[in-house]
């Protein structure tokens, strides 16, 4: 499964980061890793907002249904 991070940077120094194709809470782990490396690169980033994607969006990205407690992989019929 391809994982993608898309970062948009505007002129006011606001940075929007979209995590695409990450399973479970791995996107939050990856966000922490990215923040740590950015700090080494001289960029301190303060979180302003976090929006969790809807189940529909995640299903579209992963091709799976993610429930609250478990990840259900949809198998082809």
């Amino acid at each position, binding site marked *: 499964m391809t994982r993608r991070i898309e*970062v948009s940077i505007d*002129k006011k120094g606001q940075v929007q980061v979209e995590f695409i194709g990450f399973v479970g809470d791995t996107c939050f782990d990856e966000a922490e890793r990215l923040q740590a490396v950015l700090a080494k690169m001289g960029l301190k980033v303060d979180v302003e907002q976090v929006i969790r*994607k809807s189940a529909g969006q995640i299903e579209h990205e992963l091709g799976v249904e993610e429930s609250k407690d478990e990840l259900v992989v949809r198998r082809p019929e």
Partner: protein
Amino acid sequence: MSHISTYRANIRVNPVRGSQHDTTWQLLEEAIASVAEEHEGRIDEYVTDYFGRRTRVDFALITPTFRNGVGVNVDPKTGEVRFLYDDYGYQRGVIDSLCEELVQSYTALAVSRALDALNYSVEYEESKQSAGERRVVVRGVL
């Protein structure tokens, strides 16, 4: 669960200018060079005020639209990047725009390098918004 985060970015380079291999200072110089190139300008070590007096800075961005130059100084205690300039006789918007582009370029370079360090394949895209504002998108694919 994937998500979308919004951050406010602040540049904090190494307070003391180290070797030529200091990543943060390299990125800062690259960011200034990038903006200079885009505006057909150059990098210098001095900015000039209205009376022609010169002040030495860590980097100066000199462009045809602002010949006094935007000085870029790094606070030797905190590493905070500060801009120094004399805007008398110039449109403030031109100078604000140059400063914003410097921050944007540094941020984009840092994000690109960070994604590369995390083994992502990196793509870089610049576009102009309807209001003429530059928007940069960096994509990492793993």
